[in-house]
């Protein structure tokens, strides 16, 4: 069974440029998470989807970040415009449900460097 797929794995951009990250969750998983992981820190939730609905986006900086999950499968996270402080790893995870017993499976992440 394929795991959570993310692309690109690495992205280098200049500040003020837009950037987008893509995530394909494990087949059948209806809950999808985007996390931000700064260097030397644990992941922090940005947004959680249940099917197509964003049920928790309280930590998403909506002035520059946006996300979508069309058809309740793949998801895209966008930053426009990127700032130096956005340099981090962006992790995507998925699970069958959203209760604790439904293990979250993580992708390899996208490492963003903003110059």
């Amino acid at each position, binding site marked *: 069974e394929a*795991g959570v797929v993310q692309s690109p794995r690495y992205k280098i951009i200049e500040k003020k440029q837009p950037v987008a990250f893509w995530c394909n969750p494990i087949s059948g998983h209806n809950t999808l998470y985007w996390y931000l992981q700064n260097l030397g820190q*644990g*992941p922090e939730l940005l947004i*959680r989807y249940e099917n197509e609905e964003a049920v*928790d986006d309280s930590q998403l900086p909506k002035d520059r970040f946006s996300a979508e999950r069309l058809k309740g499968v793949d998801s895209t996270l966008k930053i426009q415009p990127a700032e130096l402080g956005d340099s981090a790893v962006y992790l995507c*995870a998925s699970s069958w449900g959203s209760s*604790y017993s439904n293990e979250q499976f*993580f992708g390899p*992440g996208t490492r963003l460097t903003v110059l």
Partner: protein
Amino acid sequence: AQTVTQSQPEMSVQEAETVTLSCTYDTSENNYYLFWYKQPPSRQMILVIRQEAYKQQNATENRFSVNFQKAAKSFSLKISDSQLGDTAMYFCAFMIFNNNDMRFGAGTRLTVKP
């Protein structure tokens, strides 16, 4: 607010020996769950072990076991018979029952030496 603290930024252990990673948390909730995740250098995070707060019995998964002290709000991970493949970042995480906001600690970098 729920916080998770891992006080050991880095640890090392000799292969085949036992190591314990510490984690404390702060919450006023009574029903919650605790997790340990492993993130190897390739960055793909995987679940190691989980514990329901209402269970007194400590969870075990093969060489991995936890020491859950609810009153002390402590949740340590013990790795027995350490293997080179255990080298990774280990994150302690907390989630309130029926609230799927998982909070992670800052992590402990574990190195297993041959």
